[in-house]
């Protein structure tokens, strides 16, 4: 069956009884579709064949359990957001880049922080040597955040911040930056990654042990629920789990389990599920096994919808709809014959689009060698534009729905994920949150991921799995790909800025604010966001705030397990 009005051969809908479930689903879909705005575009093939907006069987896109997409019109209303993640050098360097982006009509800013910032350490920490401003922008005090967004109206942009362990601190800096520029926190719009559980499982950028860290996540969910209605307080991320070596099904299962864990933590803190669940979002990988990836996205939406409704009692439709960002698989890129990566990225990006992603980052072909050059990043963006405007893929929602293979793969992904949920539920004695804590403590997640990574590597080694240019078709690697080098001056500039900021502030006020924060940390009923905002206002550094919290929470060290 095909919808809506243009005739497609074989359409059987006219024979259906008006009151049949199918007819009702169709009528409901049609009403929703007609209410949705359409973007400018030609919804016919390049040969002039008119296209229905959806084909196949109900439930249709926009209908529970959203296997076929969360919107009735999908990309006919709005293409996915082409969001490219970047950051470099000092705050002033990145600010310049932001302004160029906004001048070119962009409305979304995406911030990459350098490693010391991600780990909650100041630029003058011994660990920071050689890392300052290298893989992102360095932020030590609110002054750096103010530089980063200088001259930008924070009420008029949406900002994405990729930060986890110290997320509350960077959030506080952004709030104070808004305040000083005349934008109230209630008007700030954007997303902060703030997904700490996957750090213990995969990315390893943790600071405190899991339980106090989840308290910080919950504090931010509560705070944004009460004060920042336009902010997305957690982006639950499978990307890093997959990059660390998991299978597609493990990425799906661990990520959704982490999502359930945050839902349970926020509900335990007294929130109603429908008050916050609609502002949770997800972030998945798109790897190279095309149909497996598509099955994964479809299964993710279906599982989330059912669990949110049936296990957590959500009633608001938005709480049931899994929205996600996708990034192509950095780990699939090869250092050998790097130009071939352009083909890999295109394939992965198409899988994400056919899987119904809301936004997409395409990797640059040179990322197995170094940070991307501007030329390589441009090709990555152009790849998305080819898919969006030339392939016709966005014309029809869930174009693979109804394929026997894709439907089977979707069921299979769900079945495998369900096995993991059952295991965690048992580990946690009826609580996924406790199951995840236990899985972190007993090495379940890191062990499963390392096993999968090793199995894959052995298959490549044995030649059972071909990686083009690596273990087959190796001729033609000329090795002259241009590479980006980062200026070493950045570190000196940032150290001088930090020293200056420390000299200008009222150190008595800093000590007092840090003491109040530590006292609040010792009382689990206190929401730490306001005490952290107070520290930021008096120019306490990120490292000082982390240190004060470490004094109460402790520091996490991973058991060295191979």
């Amino acid at each position, binding site marked *: 069956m095909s919808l809506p009005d243009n005739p497609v051969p074989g359409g059987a809908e006219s024979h259906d009884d008006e009151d049949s479930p199918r007819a009702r689903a169709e009528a409901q879909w049609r009403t929703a579709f007609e209410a949705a705005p359409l973007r400018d575009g030609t919804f016919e093939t390049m040969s002039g064949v008119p296209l229905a907006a959806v084909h196949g069987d109900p439930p249709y896109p926009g209908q529970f359990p959203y296997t076929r997409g969360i919107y009735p019109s999908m990309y006919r209303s709005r293409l996915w957001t082409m969001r490219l993640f970047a950051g470099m050098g000092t705050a002033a360097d990145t600010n310049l880049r932001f302004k160029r982006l906004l001048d070119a009509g962009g409305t979304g800013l995406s911030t990459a922080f350098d*490693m010391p910032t991600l780990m909650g350490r100041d630029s003058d920490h011994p660990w920071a040597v050689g890392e300052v401003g290298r893989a992102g922008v360095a932020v030590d005090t609110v002054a750096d955040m103010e530089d980063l967004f200088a001259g930008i109206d924070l009420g008029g942009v949406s900002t994405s911040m990729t930060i986890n362990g110290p997320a509350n601190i960077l959030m506080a800096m952004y709030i104070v930056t808004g305040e000083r520029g005349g934008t109230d926190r209630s008007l700030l719009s954007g997303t902060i990654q703030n997904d700490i559980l996957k750090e213990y499982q995969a990315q390893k950028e943790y600071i405190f042990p899991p339980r106090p860290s989840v308290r910080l996540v919950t504090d931010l969910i509560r705070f944004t629920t009460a004060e920042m209605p336009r902010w997305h307080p957690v982006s639950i991320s499978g990307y890093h789990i997959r990059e660390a070596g998991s299978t597609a099904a493990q990425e799906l299962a661990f990520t959704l389990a982490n999502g359930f864990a945050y839902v349970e933590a926020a509900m335990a803190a007294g929130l109603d599920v429908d008050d916050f669940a609609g502002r949770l979002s997800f972030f998945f990988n798109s790897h190279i096994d095309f149909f497996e990836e598509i099955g994964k996205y479809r299964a993710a939406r279906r599982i989330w919808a059912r669990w949110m409704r049936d296990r957590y009692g959500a009633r608001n439709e938005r709480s049931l709809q899994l929205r996600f960002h996708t990034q192509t698989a950095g780990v699939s890129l090869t250092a050998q014959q790097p130009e071939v990566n352009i083909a890999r990225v295109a394939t992965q990006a198409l899988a994400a689009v056919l899987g119904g992603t809301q936004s997409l980052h395409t990797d640059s072909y040179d990322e197995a060698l170094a940070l991307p050059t501007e030329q390589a990043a441009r090709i990555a963006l152009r790849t998305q534009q080819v898919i969006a405007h030339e392939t016709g893929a966005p014309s029809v929602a869930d174009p693979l729905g109804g394929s026997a293979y894709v439907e089977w793969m979707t069921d299979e992904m769900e079945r495998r994920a369900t096995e993991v949920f059952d295991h965690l539920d048992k580990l946690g004695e009826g609580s996924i949150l406790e199951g995840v804590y236990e899985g972190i403590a007993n090495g379940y997640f890191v062990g499963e991921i390392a096993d999968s990574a090793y199995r894959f590597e052995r298959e490549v080694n044995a030649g059972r799995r071909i990686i083009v240019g690596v273990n087959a078709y190796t001729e033609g690697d000329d090795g002259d790909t241009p590479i980006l080098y980062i200026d070493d001056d950045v570190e000196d500039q940032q150290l001088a800025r930090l020293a200056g900021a420390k000299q200008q502030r009222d150190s008595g006020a800093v000590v007092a604010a840090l003491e109040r924060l530590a006292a609040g940390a010792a009382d689990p009923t206190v929401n730490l966001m306001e005490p952290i905002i107070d520290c930021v206002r008096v120019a306490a550094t990120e490292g000082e705030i982390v240190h004060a919290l470490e004094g109460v929470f402790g520091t996490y060290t*991973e058991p*060295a*397990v*191979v």
Partner: protein
Amino acid sequence: MTGPAVGTAGSQAERDPDRPEPVRVVLAKLGLDGHDRGLKVVARMLRDAGLEVIYLGLRQTTESILLAVEQEDADVIGLSIHNGGHLTLAPRMVEAVRAAGMDVPVVVGGIVPDMDLERLSEAGVFAVLGPGASATEVAEVVRAAAAARA
């Protein structure tokens, strides 16, 4: 702080006195770089090849690595670097080994652009293993490093 994970393919008791002792290698990540997928795979590859692996894991310092080398009587240090910091971190490790009066070779694995290979070699790094190095290659290079020491 958790102790290093020590593992070997066969147990100590089975060792034939006529056969040479297995090569002992310390594997570590220096500094903040959290990419440990490759190092964990290499640890298992080396174990399967019969080497003895002392896996230190993440967030090590030159001091913590040297301490492990001393305590475990290791033959080789394997450093994994994926964040572009190889020109800073690897020479610093070699310097620390020399300053401690040891002669333990340093092998680097990870993402190192071709044009940096010579500088690492000049700095005293024994070898660099890039992505795509096979299990056999990795074990051969570590064994060669241990042999070069004696």
